[in-house]
């Protein structure tokens, strides 16, 4: 099917397959003949055949649809917006976050909180960073707006807990220092595109 076929909204012009529905019986004799013809045409056996083949396919041809969920999981889409992750710089292990506060500003659910202070070199340092996942609507604006690719969406979607306090821990989001080697650049929501370098334009000096 082409895109044009889908965009054509004029009912009747599409290549529909019409089902042949015979007239409903009106008299008793027509009803009787309908029953007779349906009994002889073995339509009921067709239903049995279909279910039997479904069973055969499920048992022997690996067509079982069940995913045994806690043991097996379906892959999630690359742009899926699950629980956030805070990434760190691969070279030094420092926080990527520069404490600019853009995510805090843009967050429509108002669930991000950043505490910053100036350190001894007069650089901004992030003291605390928390996302209240109980409030978060997973819109992805924070990941999109982050200039340093520091806050991204991860792949953990099983966010159930007994306490609300569990939903706000920074240590949970931040890549632990011992797992630094396993940190991967995120290609999902808010990540830069593959051809980002070619899209960069020089800022004209004459501003």
């Amino acid at each position, binding site marked *: 099917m082409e895109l044009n076929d889908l965009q054509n909204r004029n009912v009747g012009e599409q290549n529909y397959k019409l089902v042949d529905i015979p007239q409903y019986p009106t008299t008793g004799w027509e009803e009787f003949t309908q029953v007779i013809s349906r009994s002889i045409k073995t339509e009921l056996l067709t*239903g049995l055949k279909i*279910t*039997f083949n479904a069973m055969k396919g499920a048992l022997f041809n690996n067509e*079982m649809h069940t995913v045994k969920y806690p043991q097996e999981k379906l892959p999630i889409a690359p742009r899926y917006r699950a629980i956030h992750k805070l990434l760190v710089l691969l070279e030094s292990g420092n926080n990527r976050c520069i404490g600019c506060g853009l995510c805090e500003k843009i967050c429509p659910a108002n669930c991000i909180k950043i505490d910053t202070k100036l350190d001894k070199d007069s650089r901004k340092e992030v003291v605390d960073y928390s996302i209240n996942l109980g409030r978060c609507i997973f819109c992805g604006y924070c990941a999109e707006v982050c200039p340093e690719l520091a806050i991204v969406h991860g792949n953990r979607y099983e966010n159930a807990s007994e306490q609300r306090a569990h939903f706000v821990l920074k240590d949970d989001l931040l890549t632990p220092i011992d797992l630094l080697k396993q940190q991967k650049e995120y290609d999902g929501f808010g990540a830069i595109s593959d051809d980002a370098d070619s899209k960069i334009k020089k800022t004209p000096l004459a501003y």
Partner: protein
Amino acid sequence: MDSGYIIGTIVNVIVVLAVFSALAGFTTYIERKVLAFMQRRLGPMNVGPYGILQVAADGIKLFTKEDFIPQNAVKPIFMIAPIITAATAFIALTAIPFLPEFEIMGHTVRPIIADINVGLLFVLGAMAIGMYGPLLAGMSSGNKWSLLGGARTAIQLLSFEVVTGLSILAPLMLVGSLSLIDINNYQNGGITDWLIWCQPVSFILFLIAGFAETNRTPFDLLEHEAEVVAGFATEYSGMRWGMFFIGEYANLFAISFMASLIFLGGFNDLWFIPGAIAIILKVAFFIFFFLWTRAAWPHVRPDQLMWLCWKVLMPLAVVNIVLTGLVIMI
């Protein structure tokens, strides 16, 4: 009447009761598995290997659940109704010969509790009394869904009782005996002697009526979830509901055994297969068929059910009897 006979009968009764109660539970497992496979699901998987202990888990759940009696129910009848269903289902099993005679430790064992000369009539009668279970349950529950379910019980089971009786009449005229053992022995000449070949119409009618009487899809109007919640069983919980369940599955086995005995050669040896295994295979096929249709076919409406019973099946059964009678006369 010697004491050996009494002891043998009691042992028979206990064995039948135990085996068929266990089979009823096991059939629920098979049913869930088969239905799941036909819908490309796995079915119960977590309790025991391949979920086989699900039966035990369900049993524990049923036994420990609160035995709830609604305020407006008619209490004695409400409490007795499930017992009627379960009891009549097992009473019906008494006159059915399950296996051929066999010897164990020098004793000849007859796997039939009561070999009476009107066995078939007894089985049908006992199963028909089972109708009181759902009917009384529906009327005593004090619930409109239950009442509707009870009303449907009355129309469905009562009407299809007629078709069952008439459909069996034709083979009975050929055999000339109401004893299920005589009917079985009549077909002992191999596969060509089976009554299904000379009575195909009554076989199909009997099977259709069997579906209706055991309350299976496509005729499970008594507890049609989409229309009447759970029909007569709406207010039942725990073991009382479990008794309805066991009775229903015991009826399923009774109908399967009867269909195998009357039409498919019963427990006569089949080629190289010994008779005991042959009848188990036949019954297993019928049970599978009951589950299979549940996965494949839709329900019918109550009015369609009545129409089918009185305007199609019953005339067919009568014509079949008349034709059989003419053939016998000639």
